[in-house]
C-alpha cells in the first residue's frame, strides 16, 4: 500500500475537523437526506433586560442536493414539525404550539425551500429561499458551512435570522425580540 493510499484512508476514517482545508463543498456532491439523528435545529429570541428564550425542534426532515460541478445549482429543502418544539418549560411549549405562535394544530409544518445557493468559500455558502409558516411565505437567507464530510455523511452548520412578524407570530414584541436566531446542525446521509 502506498503512503498516499494510507493517507487517504486515514483522512476518510478520521472525523474531519472544521478546518476548511480538509473538506470542500465540491467533494460533497450528491443527494443527502436530513434526519433527526445527530441533527439539531435550535433557536433563540432575545428579551428586554437581558437573557432570552431558547429552544429546539425535535422533529424535522429534509433533503440536501449538492451539485458537484456547480455548487450554485445545489438545493435544500427542510420541513419542521412545530408541534415538536421544546424549551424545557412545558407552559412555554404549550404557548408556542397554540394559536398565539405556531398554531401547530392548523399549520403542522414549517417549510423552507431554497431558491438559490451561492458559494462564498471552499466550505461555505449563502442559501436563499422561501420560508412558509402559518400560511405565510417570505424570502429568507441562511449561511451554511460544511463542517465534515465522511463516508457518505455531511454535516452542515447553518445559521440565520428570521423576523417572526412576517409569519403572524409577532406576539410578545417588543418584550421578546422580533428576531429569531437559528442555529442548526444538519447531518445528511447519502441516499
Amino acid at each position, binding site marked *: 500500500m502506498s503512503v498516499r493510499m494510507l493517507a487517504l484512508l486515514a483522512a476518510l476514517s478520521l472525523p474531519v475537523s472544521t478546518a476548511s482545508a480538509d473538506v470542500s463543498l465540491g467533494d460533497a456532491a450528491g443527494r443527502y437526506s436530513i434526519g433527526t439523528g445527530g441533527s439539531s435545529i435550535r433557536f433563540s429570541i432575545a428579551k428586554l*433586560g437581558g437573557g432570552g428564550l431558547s429552544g429546539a425542534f425535535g422533529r424535522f426532515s429534509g433533503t440536501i442536493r449538492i451539485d458537484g460541478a456547480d455548487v450554485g445549482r445545489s438545493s435544500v429543502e427542510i420541513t419542521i414539525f412545530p408541534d415538536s418544539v421544546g424549551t424545557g418549560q412545558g407552559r412555554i411549549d404549550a404557548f408556542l404550539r*397554540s394559536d398565539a405562535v405556531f398554531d401547530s394544530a392548523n399549520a403542522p409544518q414549517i417549510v423552507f425551500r431554497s431558491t438559490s445557493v451561492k458559494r462564498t468559500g471552499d466550505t461555505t455558502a449563502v442559501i436563499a429561499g422561501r420560508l412558509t409558516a402559518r400560511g405565510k411565505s417570505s424570502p429568507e437567507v441562511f449561511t451554511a458551512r460544511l463542517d465534515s464530510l465522511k463516508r457518505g455523511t455531511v454535516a452542515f452548520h447553518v445559521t440565520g435570522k428570521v423576523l417572526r412578524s412576517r409569519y403572524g407570530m409577532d*406576539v410578545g414584541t417588543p418584550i421578546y425580540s422580533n428576531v429569531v436566531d437559528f442555529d442548526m446542525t444538519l447531518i445528511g446521509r447519502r441516499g
Partner: protein
Amino acid sequence: MALLFRNTPTHYGWIAILLHWLIAVLFIGQFALGLAMVRISSQRTAFELIQWHKSFGFLLLGLVLVRIGWRLGNVRPTLPETVAPLERRAAPLVHALLYVVQLIVPLSGWALVSVSVLEVPSVPFDLFVMPNLPLGASDAAEAFWSVAHEWLAWVGIALAALHILAALRHRFLLRDSVFQRMIAPPSGDEPRE
C-alpha cells in the same frame, strides 16, 4: 377663586379626590381584567392582557405610594357630627384596610412575576424594564404568590364593595355631605357643609 389642593379639617382637597378616583377606577378595572385574562381562550390575547395588567398594576402601585405620602402630609377631614358612633369607628378601620390592600395587592402581583419560572420581563407600557423583586424563582413560589395575589384581590374587592355600599348609603339614604366631599371640595363662591 383658588383651587383647593390640600385637605382641610372638613373637606378633601383636589389631589386626594383625584387620587381616590384614579385608584378606584384602576383597582376595580384591574380586578376585572385579572379575572378575564386568565379565563380567555386565545393565548395571544391572554398574553397581551397580562402585560396590560402588569403595566396598570405598576401604575396603580406608584399612585398608591403617592397617595399614602399625600395622606400622611395632609389633615384628615373629620366626619360630620351626624354620622353615627358605630360608623365613626368602622369607617377609619375600613379605610385603613383599603390602604393596606391597595398596597399589597399590586406588591403581591409584582412578587408573582418576580418568582415565575417563565421569567417574562415586566415592561410597563413598553417603556422600561421593571426589575424583579429579589425573590427566588420556583414553581412552588409561583404557585404561592399566584394564590396570594388572587385571594388578596378578592379581599380588596369585598372591602371596596362594602365601602361603596356605605358611600351610596350616604348619598341616597342619609343624604349628608359624606359622598359629596369625595366629589369636589367646596368652591369659594358656594360654601358647603
